[in-house]
């Protein structure tokens, strides 16, 4: 149809049912400790952390158990007071086995959190804040798990003019950012103070979608006098939470293909990440838990939980009452969340939710529906937020023309939002094709 560009939004995109009402009104609750917590050493993009504990050692909750191994790495902290049982391989959501620390919490401990070396926002230098963020083990909590400290300093020769605090949360079902904005308002503004100082941007913009009016109102009213913060509300559209989309929506600028937000003078930070910075840095603590939404028709006790890092999906689902006909579980929301192939996969810093579907919902997803040939209806072309041509890419993928996909059709720009697969009337698993093709291209480029 006519693609009128609504104010404060971006062209293209889709409108999947939001399904957030089940949990958006439920306050964040503390999740119990599992009998064993599995803390992978690689919960972020970049180099895995280097363990600084040995098997059999007793640790205190919040204690550093692994240190950043390079600049592209962050520290890990003990999610509970207990004993390190083992350092070995554990299943990861991407299907591989990764190095992890197995921690058995002490049943009778007070679970007090150890404070570290505080980082005072007034006196600390930008470099000191960067180091403190790295030491606190902070990564993008929105899902990408990119080490936060890496992207904060303005690159050589560039000035940043806008700090985006991303509270869009466009994934259906998820309500963690929504609850954090309502319940950790003060932490968010404290986090913004740190971030403004590091990024040296003159202003911050908190981006929210129109389906969270209470959060927008609360934040707008609570903005401290001395902070140059603006709260902007965008019309609901998926995938507005993507970095490229939110900057396009609110600044009208396009991050160049293959570029970074800094290329258009912007830096983005998820709202929950910002809140954690504001909560942890003043006391020198590290991330040992995070807020996630456990939701979907497959669980009976839906909610927003502050859950220890390393809790397995199995324990989380048991506690939340998995229903009899649960059939598919995925990390995150239904648009981008990878499906869980092993219930002993631990929740990591990048996990924003667990959604469980029953057979009734999965009937409409890939693998269950008849696949027709592409009829050239152009719905994918009209949905792709990056204006790619998924139809053409899909045909090329089928014929294994990976190089042409990357060279002529910008395959590597695709961030796998799933809009094309969502709208495809032929039920072609386009995103799945693109994921595989991107892997092939990386492999070929590495070999060349």
């Amino acid at each position, binding site marked *: 149809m006519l693609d009128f560009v609504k104010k404060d939004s971006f062209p293209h995109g889709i409108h999947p049912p939001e399904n957030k009402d089940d949990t958006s009104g439920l306050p964040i609750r503390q999740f119990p400790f599992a009998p064993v917590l599995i803390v992978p050493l690689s919960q972020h993009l970049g180099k895995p952390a280097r363990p600084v504990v040995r098997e059999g050692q007793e640790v205190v909750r919040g204690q550093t158990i692994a240190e950043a191994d390079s600049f592209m790495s962050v520290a890990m902290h003990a999610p509970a007071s207990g004993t390190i049982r083992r350092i070995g391989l554990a299943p990861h959501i991407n299907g591989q086995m990764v190095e992890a620390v197995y921690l058995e919490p002490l049943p009778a401990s007070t679970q007090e959190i150890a404070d570290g070396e505080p980082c005072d926002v007034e006196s600390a230098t930008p470099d000191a804040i960067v180091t403190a963020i790295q030491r606190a083990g902070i990564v993008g909590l929105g899902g990408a798990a990119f080490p936060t400290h890496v992207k904060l300093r303005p690159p050589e020769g560039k000035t940043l003019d806008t700090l985006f605090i991303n509270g869009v949360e466009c994934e259906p079902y998820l309500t963690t950012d929504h609850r954090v904005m309502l319940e950790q308002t003060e932490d968010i503004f404290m986090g913004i103070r740190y971030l403004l100082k590091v990024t040296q941007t003159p202003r911050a913009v908190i981006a929210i979608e129109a389906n969270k009016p209470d959060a927008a109102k609360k934040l707008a009213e609570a903005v401290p006098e001395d902070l140059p913060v603006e709260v902007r509300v965008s019309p609901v559209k998926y995938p507005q939470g993507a970095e490229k989309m939110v900057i396009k929506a609110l600044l009208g600028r396009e991050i160049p293909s293959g570029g970074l937000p800094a290329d258009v003078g912007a830096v983005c930070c998820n709202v929950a990440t910002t809140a954690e910075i504001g909560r942890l840095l003043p006391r020198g603590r590290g991330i040992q838990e995070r807020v996630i939404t456990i939701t979907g028709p497959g669980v009976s006790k839906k909610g927003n939980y502050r859950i220890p890092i390393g809790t397995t999906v199995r324990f989380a689902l048991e506690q939340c009452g998995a229903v009899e006909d649960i059939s*598919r579980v995925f990390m995150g929301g*239904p648009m*981008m969340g990878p*499906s869980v192939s092993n219930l002993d996969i631990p929740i990591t810093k990048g996990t924003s939710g667990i959604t469980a579907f029953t057979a009734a919902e999965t009937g409409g997803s*890939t693998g269950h529906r008849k696949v027709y040939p592409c009829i050239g209806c*152009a719905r994918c*072309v009209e949905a792709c937020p990056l*204006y790619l041509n998924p139809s053409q890419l899909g045909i090329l993928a089928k014929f294994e023309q990976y190089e042409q996909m990357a060279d002529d059709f910008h395959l590597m720009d695709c961030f796998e939002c799933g809009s094309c697969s969502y709208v*495809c009337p032929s039920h072609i698993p386009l995103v799945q094709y693109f994921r595989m093709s991107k892997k092939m291209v990386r492999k070929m480029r590495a070999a060349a």
Partner: protein
Amino acid sequence: MSPLKKLLEIGSSPHISSGASVDNIMFNVVLALLPVTIFAVYAFGTGAALVLAAAVLSCVLTEHVLCKFAVQPTTVGDWSVAITGLLYGLTLPPDLPLWMVFVGGAFGVGVGKFLFGGLGMNAFNPALVARAFLQAAFPQAMTHWQMPFTDDRFTHIPSSVLAMPFAEPVYDAATQATPLAQMKFEAVFAADAQLMYGLTTGSVGETCGVLILLGGIYLVARNMMNWRIPASIFLTVAVMTWIFQQIDPQTYPGPLFMLFSGGLMLGAVFMATDMVASPITHTGCWLYGLLIGVLVVVIRFWGGMPEGVMYAILLANAVSPHIDNLIQPRVFGTGRKSG
């Protein structure tokens, strides 16, 4: 047993979908064609009804039999061949011998669709391939136009319809030249209103422009048709015609005449918009419509035939992949893409 003890399934994200499906889109196109079809039977009587039934039957049967022959599951369930059959029937003269209808339908689906690889692979609109075949094979029968709204149209079956294969059909119904032929060979212009409401001679389903537009609007509203293609065709034809009418109003008719005469409405709304055989980008669609519009005007004004919509669309179908090669969407964060 705990629910977590059983086998869970895995699958690639996204785990939800819009619920759209090809068969549903195709079925809606059939629905959008129903008013035109009903009007056709009302205007031309039993002849049209038989031709339409034979057209649908021949196309569906051909696809079904060919699928069986190729040892693959039959694809008639996706409704696309039903559209082909219906559209094909709507482009035929109402008193065409049924055996010709069957031959054309088999050719259109067999050669125009199946040989290319079936749904999604057909380079040309199969309904038009079928019609083009008949036009070449049986030029006389394909330009024989029964009068609409005759008194005995529901009680009398035109004898030509039931003609034996390869026998010379005998015509017993009153006939009249189509408005386009009158325009071309006699310089007589039919009234615009007559054309719009389908009161003239013509193919089974091409006469009532208003109902065709109605079906088109329904599909556009349901996001099942790219409105840019008919819009571009209408605009091109109207502007070009208007210019020539200003130059010589005796020879050239007005824009409304051109839009509502012959197969232009049916072609622009239901044939040119065949998703498979038309370009995928918005700019490409505008260009594709422009090409069809220009070809229609050129063939109608200066070609040897009175009507040119069919060839205009088939030619544009052939160009469509090249339009797609030339015009790709501008990728986010890049300048204009060249080639």
